[in-house]
C-alpha cells in the first residue's frame, strides 16, 4: 500500500534536516544565497523577525506570490509561517506546496486558545516551545518537529539558551522518575501521559528539536548544538548582518563542526558586522514574541 502524509514521512523530513541550518529569506535572491551557503532549508517570509518587531502592527502569512517565487528559486525544502491557530493560512501554504509549515509566534496569533490541529494536514508542521510541557502539547496536536523559541529578531542568544536548557533539564528529570510518578508529571507539565512516558522511556523528545530565536554568530550556533540542539534556525542574524553570504556559510560550518574549537576559531574570523542585538530587558512585556503560544 502506498501512503502519503504519514507521521513517519512527516518526522522523517525533520530527521533529514538534522545538523543543518534553516535560514529566513524574504525573496528569491536571498534564498539563492542561503542555498549556495549550504542551508538545508529556507523559511519564506515577508519580513525577517527584526523588521516585524520594528514595524509593529499585525504580522500575517507572507504573500503567496512571494512564497511561490522562493519555491521556484531553490531546490532545497521551503518552509513558511502561519499564524498560531490560523488553519486557513496553513491550508493555503499546503496548497502552495511548501514543504514544512511553521505555526509561529513571530506572527500575530489568530487564536489565543487553540493551536492548529496539525493532524488534519499532509504537510508537516514545526512549532515553537519554551519548555517540555509546551513541546509535548504541540506534538500531541500533530507537530512533527519542534524548535525552542528563544526571542526572535533580537540577535540575543540568552532566551534560546534558557529554553534549550529547560527542555533538556525536563528530559533528565522525566528519565529519572519512577513509573508511578509519570502521571503526576503529566499533570504538572499539562501534557499527555503517553508522550511523557515516551520521553521517560527514550530519554529525548519524540521529534527533532532545533534551536531558534537569537542566533547571530557561528559561536551562537555551535553553543546551541553543544547544548543538544539537532540543528538551528537563523532568522534576522544573516540578512541583517554586514556580509550575509559569508556569515551564512560560516554558520553552516559551525553547525557541522560545533565541537571543534580550533576550527570554530578559523570559521569565525573576518565575517564583517553582526546584526545589532537587543537587550531582552529593554523589550516591553507585551512585545515578547515567546509569550505567544498556549
Amino acid at each position, binding site marked *: 500500500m502506498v501512503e502519503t502524509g504519514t507521521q513517519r*514521512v512527516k518526522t522523517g523530513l525533520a530527521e533529514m534536516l*538534522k*545538523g*543543518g541550518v534553516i535560514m529566513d529569506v524574504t525573496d528569491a535572491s536571498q534564498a539563492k544565497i542561503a542555498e549556495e551557503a549550504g542551508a538545508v532549508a529556507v523559511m519564506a517570509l515577508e519580513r525577517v523577525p527584526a523588521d516585524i518587531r520594528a514595524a509593529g502592527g499585525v504580522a500575517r502569512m507572507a504573500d503567496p506570490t512571494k512564497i511561490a517565487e522562493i519555491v521556484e528559486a531553490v531546490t532545497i*525544502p521551503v518552509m513558511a509561517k502561519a499564524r498560531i491557530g490560523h488553519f486557513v493560512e496553513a491550508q493555503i501554504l499546503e496548497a502552495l506546496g511548501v514543504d514544512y509549515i511553521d505555526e509561529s509566534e513571530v506572527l500575530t496569533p489568530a487564536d489565543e486558545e487553540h493551536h492548529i490541529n496539525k493532524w488534519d494536514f499532509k*504537510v508537516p508542521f514545526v512549532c515553537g516551545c519554551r519548555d517540555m510541557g509546551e513541546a509535548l502539547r504541540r506534538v500531541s496536536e500533530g507537530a512533527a518537529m519542534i524548535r525552542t523559541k528563544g526571542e526572535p529578531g533580537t540577535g540575543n542568544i540568552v532566551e534560546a539558551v534558557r529554553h534549550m536548557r529547560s527542555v533538556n533539564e525536563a528530559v533528565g528529570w522525566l528519565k529519572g522518575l519512577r513509573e508511578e510518578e509519570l502521571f503526576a508529571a503529566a499533570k504538572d507539565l499539562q501534557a499527555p501521559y503517553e508522550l511523557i512516558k515516551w520521553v521517560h522511556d527514550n530519554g529525548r523528545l519524540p521529534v527533532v528539536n532545533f534551536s531558534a530565536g537569537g542566533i547571530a554568530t557561528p559561536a551562537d550556533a555551535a553553543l546551541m548544538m553543544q547544548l543538544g540542539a539537532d540543528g538551528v534556525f537563523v532568522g534576522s542574524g544573516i540578512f541583517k548582518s554586514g556580509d550575509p553570504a559569508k556569515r551564512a556559510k560560516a554558520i553552516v560550518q559551525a553547525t557541522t563542526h560545533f565541537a571543534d574549537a580550533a576550527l570554530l576559531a578559523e570559521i569565525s574570523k573576518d565575517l564583517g558586522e553582526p546584526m545589532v542585538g537587543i537587550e531582552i530587558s529593554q523589550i516591553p512585556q507585551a512585545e515578547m514574541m515567546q509569550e505567544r503560544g498556549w
Partner: protein
Amino acid sequence: MNNIKIGVLALQGAVREHIQHIEALGVTGIAVKRPRELDEIAGLIIPGGESTAIGKLMVEYDFIDAVRAFGEAGKPVYGTCAGMILLAQRISEGGQPLLGLMDIEARRNAFGRQRESFEADLDIEGIGLFRAVFIRAPWIEATGEGVQTLAEFDNIKVMARQNQYLASAFHPELTGDVRIHKYFLDMIEEA
C-alpha cells in the same frame, strides 16, 4: 561481537538512525566528521540529508577525493537518498558536487515535494518485501553496464548495486528493519 567498524558521514543529515541500525547488528558505528577518520572504518554510509548542503561541506572539508580513494580501494560505500545522489556519476538537472563512484544518473526531488513524500512496500532482490520511506526522494534515471537494479517502484529504479557500491532512493534507517544494513555488512565482510 564483530570487530568491523562502519562509518556514517556526519556532515549533516540522519546520522543517528544509521548508527543505531549498525549497532543493532552488533557492529561499531562511527560518526565520520574528518577525512582522516576514514582510516578506521571498513565501510561508509552516506546518509540522507540535503545533498547540496552535504556536497558543499564535502568539498570544504576535502572529503571528495578521500571518499573516492576509499571506494576505489575496494571498500564498500552505501548512499541513501542524498547519499545516492552523491554516489552518482551524473544528475539529470542542475549541478552540485558529486563523487561519481557509481555509473548511474540520479534525478533530484524526482518524486516531488514533501506533500508527495510516501511510504510503500518494495520487493528487493536478495532481501524480499521491505517497507520503504521516500522523502522528497530522488530516483535512478539511468544505469550503466555493470549496475544491478535491486528494486523498482512503479517501474522506476530506486535501489541499485555496482560491485562495492550500494544506493537506495529511500530510507531504511527510518524503519526498524535492519535487513538492508545487514546486506551492506555482508558486502563489507566479502570485500
